[in-house]
């Protein structure tokens, strides 16, 4: 760990002002950042501690939206009655992530900003374009079991590890921020993350010093909500493939489908063509296969992760089948 300056923010304004300079980072739960600092994968010069800011409420707004403070702990958010009742997929996704201890500590905003679990990103003795741009990608020719099959580039095949963000992607969450110049932004989650391209070290559209203050969820969509996470052990493992699904079946046809995927790409993955393939159709194994075809068109395995292609197909079909059965 490199020596760093530590400041505790007294207000959100204070926080963004304190983090405006390059090399500054916010810290809340620190469940990911501290690990990375110990390994010197991340070496911030200044930490701005936002953990005491009053951003820990979950509120039901008049327009039926729900507003989640960026510092709401993952465990609190998962257990919140409003979330459990109306956004089941989010609650289930949160509970599928990490461990009880980590969820107690991890914040909502921080969860969105988790770094990849690529083995080589975590290992400063190996080349990694995400950690040190321009050094190369050790994963493509190396061990890549947990890495991406969609949206990869020649520079990076990392995956985003969050479960929560996958559910939020399916729910069309909006991320609200405050910038050092005092301006606010509302960023739809669809526009929040970036594919690796030739700048895999830049993962979101956030600017230096820009603070996530709240996340809003639109009114709950109709239909059943499911989160299915396939992983290498029953608990405390990152997703090989996960699916967040909101599926509405009306009169024997799929009336609404919102599907987001974890474990497949550099960001929570959502593909309008998958949903378009389903909507208006009567559910059947052939239809589920067609949806998977749409999802996996352009998917590419790198050896150890080739299995994710059939696994994603199977998991999607299982989720859709289950959603339809729940309607019946």
């Amino acid at each position, binding site marked *: *760990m*490199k020596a760093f300056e530590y400041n505790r923010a007294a207000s959100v304004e204070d926080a963004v002002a304190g983090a405006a300079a390059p090399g500054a980072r916010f810290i809340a739960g620190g469940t990911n950042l501290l690990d990375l600092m110990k390994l*010197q994968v991340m070496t911030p010069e200044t930490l701005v501690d936002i953990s005491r800011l009053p951003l820990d409420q979950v509120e039901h707004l008049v327009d039926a939206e729900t507003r989640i403070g960026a510092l709401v702990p993952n465990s609190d958010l998962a257990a919140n009655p409003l979330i459990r009742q109306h956004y089941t997929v989010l609650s289930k996704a949160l509970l599928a992530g990490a461990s009880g201890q980590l969820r107690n500590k991890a914040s909502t905003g921080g969860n969105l900003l988790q770094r990849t679990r690529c083995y080589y990103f975590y*290992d400063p003795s190996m080349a990694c374009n995400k950690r040190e741009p321009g050094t190369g990608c050790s994963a493509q020719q190396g*061990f890549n079991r947990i890495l991406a099959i969609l949206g990869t580039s020649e520079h990076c095949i990392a995956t985003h590890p969050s479960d929560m963000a996958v559910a939020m992607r399916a729910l069309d969450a909006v991320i609200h921020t405050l910038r050092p110049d005092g301006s606010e932004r509302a960023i739809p989650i669809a526009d929040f993350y970036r594919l690796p391209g030739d700048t895999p070290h830049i993962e979101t559209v956030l600017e230096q010093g820009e603070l996530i203050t709240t996340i809003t969820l639109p009114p709950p969509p109709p239909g059943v909500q499911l989160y299915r996470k396939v992983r290498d052990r029953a608990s*405390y*493992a990152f997703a090989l493939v996960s699916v967040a699904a909101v599926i509405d079946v009306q009169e024997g046809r799929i009336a609404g489908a919102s599907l987001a995927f974890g474990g497949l790409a550099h960001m929570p993955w959502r593909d309008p063509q998958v949903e378009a393939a389903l909507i208006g159709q009567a559910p059947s194994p052939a239809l589920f296969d067609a949806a998977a075809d749409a999802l996996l068109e352009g998917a590419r395995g790198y050896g150890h992760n080739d299995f994710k292609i059939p696994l994603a197909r199977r998991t999607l079909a*299982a989720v859709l089948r289950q959603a339809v059965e729940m309607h019946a």
Partner: protein
Amino acid sequence: MTETVSLTMDEPVAHSLLDEDAQGVIGRPLNRIDGPLKVAGKATYAAEYQLDNLAHGFLIGAKFGRGRVTRIDAEQARTMPGVIDVFWDFDHFIRNPQQGGQKSKPVQGVRDVQYFGEPIAIAVAETFEQARAAAHAVKVEWIEEPGLFDFDGRLDEAVTPPEGATEPYACKGDIDAAMAQAAVTVDAVWTTPSQNSAAMEMHASIASWDDEGNLTVHGSYQMPASDRQQLADALSLPPEKVRIVSRYVGGGFGSKLGIAPESVASALAAKAIGRPVKTVMARQQVFDATVRRSNTRQRIRLGATAQGKLLAIGHETIGSNLPEEDFFEPAGIATQFLYAGDARRITHDNVPMNRLLSGSMRAPGEAAGMLALECAMDELAEALKLDPVAFRKLNEPEADPQKEQPFSSRRLVECYDDAAAKFGWEQRNRTPGGLRQGEWLVGHGMAASARSNKLQPSKARVAVEADGRVVVETDMTDIGTGTYTILAQIAGELLGQPLTHVEVRLGDNRYPPGAGSGGSFGAGSSGTSVYVACQSLRERIAAKLGVAADGVTFKDGLVIAENRTTPLGEIAGGMEVIGEIEPGKMDEDVTQASYGAHFCEVHVNAHTGEMRVKRWVSSFAAGRILNEKTARSQCIGGIVFGIGAALTEEAVHDWRNGKIVNRDLAEYHVPAHADVPHIEVTFLPERDVHANPMQAKGIGELGISGAGAAVVNAIYNATGIRVRDYPVTLDKLLAGLPA
């Protein structure tokens, strides 16, 4: 000078004093006497000693898999806040940990780097964080050399290791002819990956020197008696100038049998700066630079008559280790004695590789070998259309089929029957892939368990104080296994004191040298040394009372003989004896092992291939059980290891440099709680008169042996898919699952 009373185990001991059961503590499922200390944080582990003027070290590992260090530039690092020095000694740092029980140092010298992460220098600072930051800032230059990183492509370069404790080759009869003659055969290859013990407590040492040049190391070690000799040898000191203290050890599983690089680096750095130095390995360094279980490639050949009598048993293992290292994973060790069959070929070879040292990890041999053997037995049973239990019973040998000598005790058949009944084996799924509950395919599997029993030289001092309290001292360790408790139970039982009146002091070279914790020999060996000492004390007390030794009862702090009752402290206060046990003819003339049988139910998701172990029943026979609770915990822990071996655990080597890729507990997957069902463990009553006077056999490695194979046999039963490449991760099932 305290008298030493010695027993060499040359004869069976038919009568055990423990059977008198006067105090009634032996065998009982008593809580650990050190439990309250551990939950209260008062049990002091190696890195927790607060020494004055302590400095902190952080090891610096090579960032290449094979080559030569040409320069270390520590100029910048030395100017960093709190940094005392960056220190290296290419001649005296040890290359890798030593194997267990060795009396000399491991390979010394690190200029020629043999594996990625090999510790080549140490940064020393006022705080741990400063030392770690300095370690990162040190610049190392090197010339890389071509390394031996490919296993599969270099099988023909395998060499036969020299004969050590285990013979690498044990062959009998003509296996090729027997296979040709057999009506039904299995001939297949299983592979198992490298594994890491991943003990909760990382390897750690605090080295401090006194003014007379005596070195004390508070270290996380399993075998202080031999560790002391190894460390002394590495530092060119007489052993009596070295003292190792390992009072509490947070798990070892073999990875802490011998000294590891942090001990020597800390000692050298402490000498150089004239202050005590504490070095705790980071989790990643434990993966990089301690010890792994070797990966293996195991060819199993089994041939049987149409009726199911085994004619041929072949178990040929190729493992890997650093060039010139002799240790090999003895995967065929249980194959030597588990099943009858005249033609036998059990071999072990090693491919030299530039990967970190391979050595002992819980049940070296059986843990990896039975993953292959017990699945091969399942395959052959199926080919014979026999119940796998019935098939095993058909091949239950009367005597050790390899060495042609008697078994000391063996209740394996009773274990099969007991566990099968408790599990409901009769109601098992009989059609592979044929039983489904919703999304889940349901399967049942079983496997035998066997683990060799060994005795090691061990000593313990037992003293009676004036108030009757009993003090036991030995440098034996408790690595979470329950040694403190069982030694107190043995002494308490034999001298008639409740556990509150027995104090056990462990893990310090100031006490008589114990066996250490390893190879399932710790309880039997160190327990016997306590037994021998207590037996001698009883005889002395009887003599003092003027009665025959067998006419005295010891109970509740009282000595009762011929209607006279005397407090123990009054008659024996001040007495002390060192008990010693030496292995003898019983180790050679009879084949000793503990046995068991595992049965489990595994569900496999028909869509995703996810596997969940849902039910588990095991029955074991391991001689006398000294403490039913700690013994049960040992077995459960071993079974959990087996579940991990079957489903999740793999230390992946990068093919480009040999390094471990998944070197933390987020990506090296040991089973989580959710992966482990309730585990029902039964101990069948047994006494082994050949093992030791307690008639107890080893239990620490029995649970793991065979457990993983039971899981994989159940996966086959659930899915109809045989996977022979461990661990059985879901990707290996996908192609064979229903569409």
